[in-house]
C-alpha cells in the first residue's frame, strides 16, 4: 500500500504526541566531558528536527537525566524515564560501567536503546535485541591503535600502560592479548593509579625494557599529561599511541612544554580528521560550519562527541520514518534490514540481524594529538591518501 500523499493540516500536526527520547548521561562529576559534548549534539539535532516538521509530525522531546557516572543512579534513571516518562527510545548512558548495569534493565522493557560505551559486551543481539550502537566498540579502538603501532610505526617491542580503573585494566589486558596473537613482544605492561603524581619510575622501567612504542590506555587527562611530561624529562622519544583523551583539550595546559605533545597519536575518526592538506572531509566541514553558526561550542570538546549525538538523533528519525512507526519491533526490523545510514560521524552505519555495531571499522584511524583544532585532529602520518 502506498503512502497517501495527503497534506496534513498544521493544527493536526501540533497535536501529535511528542516522541520522547530518554537521554541518560553523566553530565556532572568525573568523566562528564564526553556526555557534555554528546549532549550538545543531541539537543542541536533535536532542535533542528523540531524546527522543521519533526518526526512524522511529532516533536522530539529529550528527557534527560544526570547519572553522574554512578551505575545505581543510572539504573534508577533508566527505570524512571521508561516507567514515568514513557520514553520510546533511550540514548546512553555514557560510561561503560553504567551501561553494563542498564542494558539488561532497558532490554526487559523492550525499549530500543543506543548505549554510548565502548565495552564490546554491551552489544549482544541475543541478550539485548533492541540495542544498537552508533559509536565504535573497544575492539575497533584496539585494532586501530595496535595496527598503527605494528604496521605504520613498525614496532616489534611494545610497552603497554594504563590506569587502574576498570576500563584501563581491561584495555591493557586486551591489548596484551591481541598483540601476542599478532606475534609482537610485550616488553612492559604496567598499571598506574590515575591520581599518582610521579610516573617517572614507571616510565623509566618501560624505557629500560626496550619498548619501541608505548600503548597508553587511560581516559584521565592528568595522567596522560604526566606520562608525556615524564617522557620528555627522560629524553625518551618513544611514540605514544592510544586513547582519544591523549589529545583532549584538557591535556594541553597540563603539559610542561608544548612540544611534549609531539609524537603522540590518539585514536580518532576519519570523518573528523584533517587530511594532509589540513582539510576536513566536505560533509564534516559543512557540519562544523552549520553547528558553529548555531552557537554550538567545539573548541572545548571533541567533534566526534557532538557528531555522535547528532547522528543518533538523526538515525532515530530516519528509522521511525522508514518504519512509519516508533514501535520497538518495527524499529528493530528496519535497522536490521541493512540500509546504510550516512551520518556525519558514522558515515556509513549499517546493521544486520547478527550485528548491532554500526560503526565502520575502516573509519577508526589514528590522529596526531597535538593537532587539536575546533574539536578535530589531523590524521596521523602513514595513512596515505
Amino acid at each position: 500500500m502506498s503512502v497517501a500523499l495527503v497534506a496534513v493540516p498544521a493544527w493536526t500536526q501540533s497535536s501529535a504526541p511528542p516522541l520522547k527520547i530518554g537521554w541518560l548521561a553523566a553530565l556532572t562529576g568525573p568523566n562528564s566531558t564526553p556526555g557534555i559534548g554528546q549532549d550538545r549534539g543531541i539537543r542541536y539535532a533535536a532542535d533542528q528536527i523540531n524546527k522543521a516538521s519533526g518526526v512524522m509530525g511529532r516533536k522530539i522531546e529529550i528527557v534527560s537525566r544526570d547519572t553522574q557516572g554512578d551505575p545505581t543512579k543510572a539504573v534508577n534513571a533508566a527505570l524512571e524515564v521508561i516507567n514515568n516518562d514513557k520514553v520510546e527510545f533511550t540514548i546512553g548512558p555514557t560510561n561503560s560501567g553504567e551501561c553494563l548495569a542498564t542494558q539488561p534493565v532497558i532490554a526487559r522493557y523492550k525499549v530500543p536503546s543506543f548505549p554510548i560505551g565502548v565495552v564490546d559486551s554491551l552489544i549482544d543481539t541475543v541478550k539485548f535485541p533492541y540495542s544498537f550502537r552508533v559509536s565504535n566498540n573497544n575492539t575497533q579502538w584496539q585494532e586501530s591503535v595496535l595496527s598503527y603501532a605494528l604496521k605504520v610505526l613498525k614496532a616489534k617491542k611494545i610497552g603497554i600502560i594504563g590506569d587502574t580503573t576498570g576500563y584501563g585494566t581491561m584495555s591493557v589486558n586486551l591489548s596484551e592479548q591481541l598483540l601476542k596473537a599478532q606475534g609482537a613482544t610485550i616488553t612492559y605492561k604496567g598499571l598506574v593509579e590515575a591520581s599518582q603524581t610521579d610516573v617517572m619510575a614507571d616510565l623509566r622501567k618501560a624505557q629500560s625494557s626496550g619498548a619501541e612504542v608505548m600503548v597508553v590506555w587511560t581516559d584521565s587527562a592528568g595522567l596522560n599529561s604526566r606520562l608525556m611530561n615524564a617522557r620528555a624529562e627522560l629524553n625518551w622519544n618513544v611514540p605514544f599511541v592510544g586513547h582519544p583523551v591523549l589529545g583532549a583539550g584538557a591535556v594541553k595546559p597540563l603539559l610542561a612544554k608544548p612540544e611534549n605533545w609531539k609524537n603522540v597519536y590518539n585514536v580518532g575518526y576519519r570523518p573528523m580528521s584533517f587530511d594532509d592538506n589540513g582539510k576536513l572531509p566536505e560533509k564534516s566541514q559543512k557540519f562544523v560550519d552549520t553547528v558553529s553558526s548555531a552557537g554550538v561550542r567545539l573548541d572545548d570538546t571533541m567533534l566526534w562527541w557532538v557528531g555522535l549525538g547528532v547522528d543518533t538523533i538523526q538515525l532515530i528519525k530516519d528509522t521511525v520514518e522508514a518504519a512509519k512507526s516508533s514501535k520497538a519491533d518495527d524499529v528493530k526490523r528496519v535497522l536490521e534490514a541493512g540500509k546504510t545510514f550516512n551520518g556525519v560521524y558514522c558515515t556509513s552505519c549499517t546493521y544486520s540481524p547478527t550485528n548491532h555495531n554500526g560503526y565502520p571499522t575502516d573509519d577508526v584511524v589514528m590522529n596526531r594529538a597535538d593537532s587539536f583544532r575546533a574539536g578535530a585532529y589531523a590524521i596521523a602520518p602513514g595513512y596515505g591518501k
Partner: protein
Amino acid sequence: MLVTILVAGIAIGAIYAMIGLSYNMMYSTSKVVSFTPGQLGMIGAVFGAWFIGVLEVPLWLGFLGAMGVAVAYGFFTELVAVRPVLKSIEQHLYVLTTLAAALMIQQVVAIWWGTDPRPFPTLFGLGAGLASEKYWLPVVACFLAFIGLELFYRKTLWGAAFIAVAEDAEASRALGIPDVRIRVVSYCLAGFIGALAGFMGGQLLLAFFALGATLTFYGFVPIAMGGIGSNRGALIGGFFLGILQQAANYFVGGVFVGVVTFAVFITLLLLVPRGLFGSAVARRV
C-alpha cells in the same frame, strides 16, 4: 632508578609529613582527630592554582590568598565541627562532624573547580629534572614548618599555653589561659600548615578536588605510625611512607600497591595502636 625513588619519595613524604603536622596541631588543643587535614592540602593546591594560575596575581599575593582560605576553613572547622561536640568527646562525634565538614568542602570545590586535575603553576622556575623545585620545595617547607613549631612550643609563651591546654584544658582555664581562643588559633594554624603542604606540593599533586581524600589517608599513616601528637613521628613516618610508596609503585605497580599499603597500615595500627612515639593510655576508673 633508586635516586628517582628517593627524590620523589622524600618530596611526597614531606607533603604527607606536613599533613601529619596539621593533624597534630588540631589534636594538640582539642584531643580531636579531624578528617579535614587532607582537605586543607587540597585547598592550598586548588586555590594556589586559582589565584596564581587563573587570576594571575603575583606569587606572594596568591600564596596569602590560598593560605587565607585555608585559615578560614580551619576557623570554620573549629567553630562548627569541633566546639559543639567537645563536651561529649568520648562519643567521638567529632569523627562525624569533621567528616561532614571535609565532604562539604570537597564537593563545593568539585562543583566550582571541576573534577579534572588542573595545572598548578610553576612558582619560581628553579631547577630541572630531579633537582626541580617541585621536589625540594615541599621538603624545605616541611622542615621550616617543623622547626618553626618546635621553636614555637619551646620558646614562646603562646607555645607553652598550647601545651598547657593540650594537657588539661580545664586546669588551663582555671589559670586564666583562654583555652577557646587558643584552640581557635591552633585550628587556623593547622589550616596554614595543611595548605602549605598543598601549595608547595602543588606542582607534584596538581590542583585536584579529590586530593583531600588521598591526603587525609596518607597523611594519617605517619600519625598512626608515629603516634598522634608527635611531630617527630609525623616527619619520620611521612618520609618513610613516601619512599615506600614510590618503591612499591616501581617494583610492584598496579592495583595491589594500594591494597598492600592499606593492609600493612591496618596491621601496624593493630599492633601498635598508640604509635611508636605515642603517649600511654589514661587511667580509666
